[in-house]
């Protein structure tokens, strides 16, 4: 009797969030900096590349005022590498997420990526964690998929296909990759069979999550319901086994565990 909204984000919402991803563009015209809520955009001077949020880049692209430089991981060779990794190197898991972004600090060491404005001497204050979350991460190097890989690739191929080298090949590689990973997503629930198995979702993209969320949750919930009585018996035995040592406290604790299990339903 609740709102008929699905849990989590639906694909269109994921795609909307993806529009905040930064892409590199090559402007064709000069454009002054635009003050936006998320900060000022860089001023565009034609031969110089600039970082733009995807939505703005697409707007400029549609107006023929800029070309989009496709990210490194969207190159056919990089995608083929990832597919090779998914199918041959590690057929069980998803390809790993990109390494945490780093940049050189000018003294020959790599430091965690921080906002360019922050000087290196300034101590990070608690509460403004400079660590970045997916839509604001810099584009990963070739061979790694970003969190929003599927949406970003689809959007770029739809609106800026002429900027993507070997667009047809990229498209077919993306289809392959999507199929491989969808099969893994289906297979990931198999690990629940023995009981206590956890579905490892490291490296899964946002769109894939939105696609399979309801199904995976349904499987986990079904397994939980089927095993509920066995689980209750096990807890009882534990409570009895521990009763000698902990006295009455163990039973009460068992009850608490059960409560939290119910709340965890979703």
């Amino acid at each position, binding site marked *: 009797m609740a709102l008929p909204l699905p849990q989590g984000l639906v694909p269109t919402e994921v795609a909307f969030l993806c529009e905040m991803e930064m892409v590199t563009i090559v402007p064709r015209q000069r454009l002054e900096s635009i003050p936006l809520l998320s900060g000022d955009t860089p001023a565009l001077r034609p031969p110089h590349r600039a970082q733009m949020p995807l939505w703005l880049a697409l707007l400029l692209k549609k107006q023929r005022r800029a070309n989009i430089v496709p990210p490194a991981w969207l190159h056919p060779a990089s995608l083929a590498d990832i597919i090779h990794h998914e199918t041959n190197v590690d057929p069980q898991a998803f390809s790993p997420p990109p390494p945490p972004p780093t940049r050189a600090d000018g003294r020959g060491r790599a430091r965690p990526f921080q906002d360019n404005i922050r000087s290196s001497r300034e101590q990070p204050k608690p509460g403004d964690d400079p660590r970045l979350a997916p839509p604001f991460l810099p584009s990963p190097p070739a061979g790694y998929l970003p969190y929003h890989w599927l949406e970003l690739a689809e959007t770029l191929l739809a609106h800026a296909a002429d900027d993507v080298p070997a667009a047809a090949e990229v498209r077919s590689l993306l289809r392959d990759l999507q199929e491989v990973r969808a099969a893994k997503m289906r297979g990931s*629930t198999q690990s629940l069979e023995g009981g206590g198995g956890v579905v490892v979702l490291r490296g899964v993209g946002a769109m894939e999550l939105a696609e399979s969320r*309801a199904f995976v949750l349904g499987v986990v919930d079904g397994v939980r319901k*089927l*095993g509920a*009585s066995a689980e209750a*018996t096990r807890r009882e035995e534990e409570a009895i086994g521990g009763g000698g040592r902990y006295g009455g406290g163990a039973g009460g604790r068992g009850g608490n565990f059960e409560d939290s299990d119910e709340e965890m339903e979703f």
Partner: protein
Amino acid sequence: MSYYDLDAILTDAEKVPCKFELDVPDLGYLDNNPSQALKAQTPVSLPLWLAELLALSSRTQSSNPEDSAPFLTLEMPKALSNEVVSALKADPRAVALRDQTHNMYGLAARMLDLFEEPEMCAVLRRTFVTRAAETALHARKAGATDDVVRGEGFLSGLEEWERSLFRRAHDGNKACKEWMDGVKK
């Protein structure tokens, strides 16, 4: 579980075989013999909600758990009989669960509450997980290709939990596909 959950209500109405432990007057019609009392130990089928109550409550007033004698004894329904469980153990995908009962897993969860059957629990769990992966595959393929006929046998054998899984998986795929088709605009 919601009060209005239709599947739960239907599961409650599943018939389970049971035997009364005592003669029951005026219930002879359950055994097609309305003129006489229902004899003890006559096999009858009662809905789960009633059978469960009668099997768990004691017919004497005393609160001493030792001499609690229930009204009737429950047995495993046919859908969870040894034959079905061994068939599931052999190949989960080959059994049409819907032919056994529409609420196979719901019933199983209820029966596992009443009976301690760790082995059956493990088999059902494996069945559920294996069939879920297969269901998801069919959900992805449904509508995309024309080979519906191939999966028809399997899909018509899905019981209610699996049907809802199918629907969830298919909805997810459909929403994703819809976005992908609309991204051009």
